[in-house]
């Protein structure tokens, strides 16, 4: 049985209790909704893109500690970044949770580099040992990808419930 503190690290518990950038974003020009109805995780994400950069981002919603902390950490990680970089971070994060790519072999130089590139998001690494919970951690990122592709006037609805753990 995996150690719980590996999953529920302090930074995760902190972000789930006091999510950052939580609320509506009136200036949003991109938006999407993430909904995992089987879990009851749902979030509405608003993004303000200016000159190719994520100038503002905020979310509202409710769900498990993993889904809320992941959304909160995500908003901190991508704010101020160019849209392209946010997309790369999204891919990197999902690779981590699926145990794919250069970081797949734990402890390898590639894995260390991947975790470094993820910064604070690396706190969610423990989720990969709980296959049923991976979809909770990736919901915010799928929602971000959808938001960046959709105008705020026509938010897309996404879910990570049907992708399983392998996608």
């Amino acid at each position, binding site marked *: 049985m995996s150690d719980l503190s590996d999953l529920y690290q302090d930074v995760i518990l902190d972000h789930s209790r006091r999510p950052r950038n939580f609320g509506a974003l009136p200036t949003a020009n991109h938006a999407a909704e993430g909904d995992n109805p089987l879990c*009851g995780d749902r979030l509405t994400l608003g993004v303000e893109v200016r000159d190719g950069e994520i100038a503002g981002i905020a979310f509202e919603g409710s769900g498990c500690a*993993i889904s809320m902390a992941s959304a909160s950490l995500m908003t901190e990680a991508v704010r101020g970044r160019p849209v392209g970089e946010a997309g790369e971070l999204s891919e990197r994060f999902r690779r981590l949770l699926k145990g794919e790519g250069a970081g797949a072999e734990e402890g390898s130089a590639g894995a260390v580099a991947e975790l470094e590139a993820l910064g604070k998001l690396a706190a969610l690494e423990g989720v990969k040992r709980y296959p049923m919970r991976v979809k909770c951690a990736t919901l915010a990122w799928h929602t971000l990808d959808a938001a960046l592709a959709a105008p705020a006037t026509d938010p897309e609805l996404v879910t990570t419930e049907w992708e399983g753990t392998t996608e």
Partner: protein
Amino acid sequence: MAVGTGIEDDLRAARARPPRARPPAAEAPAPFDVERVRGELPVFAPGGPGGPDAAAPPLVYLDSAASAQKPRAVIDAVARFYATGYSNVHRGLHPIAAAADAAYEGAREAVRRYLNAPQAGEVVFVRGATEAINLVAWSYLAPRLEPGDEVLVTELEHHANIVPWQLVCHAAGARLVAAPIDAAGDLDLAAFAERLGPRTRMVAVTQVSNALGTAVPVAEVVRLAHERGVPVLVDGAQAVPHGPVDVQALGCDFYALSGHKMYGPTGIGALWARGELLAAMPPYQGGGGMIRSVALAGTRFAPPPERFEAGTPHIVGAVGLAAAIEWLEALDWAAVAAHEERLVTSAVAALEAVPGVTVLGRPRRRVGVVSFVVDGVHPHDVGTVLAAEGVAVRAGHHCAQPLMERLGVPATTRASFALYNRQADVEALARGVARVRELFA
């Protein structure tokens, strides 16, 4: 008589019924020897589910409402049948085919006994309660349903007792109506009676709620429905693990059960239906085994129950189910019922003693299930922490989303009890939930 719970009626009838393997219970039932019973389930042996690690803590399995663990008697019956008696059923000319026929029909008789049904020929083998309900929805109800007709269920139902009715209602332009529960989580019988209208063509009700543990007063529901000439299907999936049932005492018209929840194999279940209703129903599926004769110009169907068992049935599943029933029949049910009730009552008390924990529902009689929520902690986090502490529970909507909606929660954490659980399991649950509080405080 006070409003019966159905279960009580069943237990009373079961106790009154001759001959059980054990002598009838004395006034104070003999204590139930749970350790002896646990010894009959390999999964609880030292190192059971975790392999040969004898030092691993014993499995605390509080997820029996999802599926029950299997006694050695069932596992062995399945293996023995495959090894020594296996053949297809239906009119084989060689000796092991005859033995397979006898085993399969013997299993039908075992189900009849367990339900105290009048005739074994009224028992149809299906994959589980879900298929039993679908069979009734399409074979019995669909041909009778007119636009504007109604099917009456309750807010307690599992999706298996909602969606099949929605499908036939949609096809016919009919309407699904749900009778509400009260604040305690009991079916509101007065409201149920009000919703039984001139257009109600079918009542479908669970005997025990899989999400709250509420025992529904099925005999009373049947009485109300029959006063208006409406047939009743009882979803017994959560009731049969907790003791023999008496469909004649309940008075219902259809009874659905799943084998895997009553210590038998997955993929096998049964529908009991009144003989005269079954005889008038068209086939559910077509194929081999369900015909009298086939010509390209048309087919004559076999009588029930074969009419509803197209294709090679789950013969081994039926054999395993019969073994489970025989295992259950050898138990002293008064003692088992007292044991399970003690566990459930003590689980409710132990959970409520943890600050911030709310047990959902306070039904007049609770059978096997305790659903709860922890303030500020999502049920999936509760379930994950409990799993890490070695306690297997279920978190989610328990295939009862309309009930979750009614309770105003997205999901719950559910601890469910079977006869092999013991007080130590309740204590492990309480310790785990206290750990949840600690972690998320």
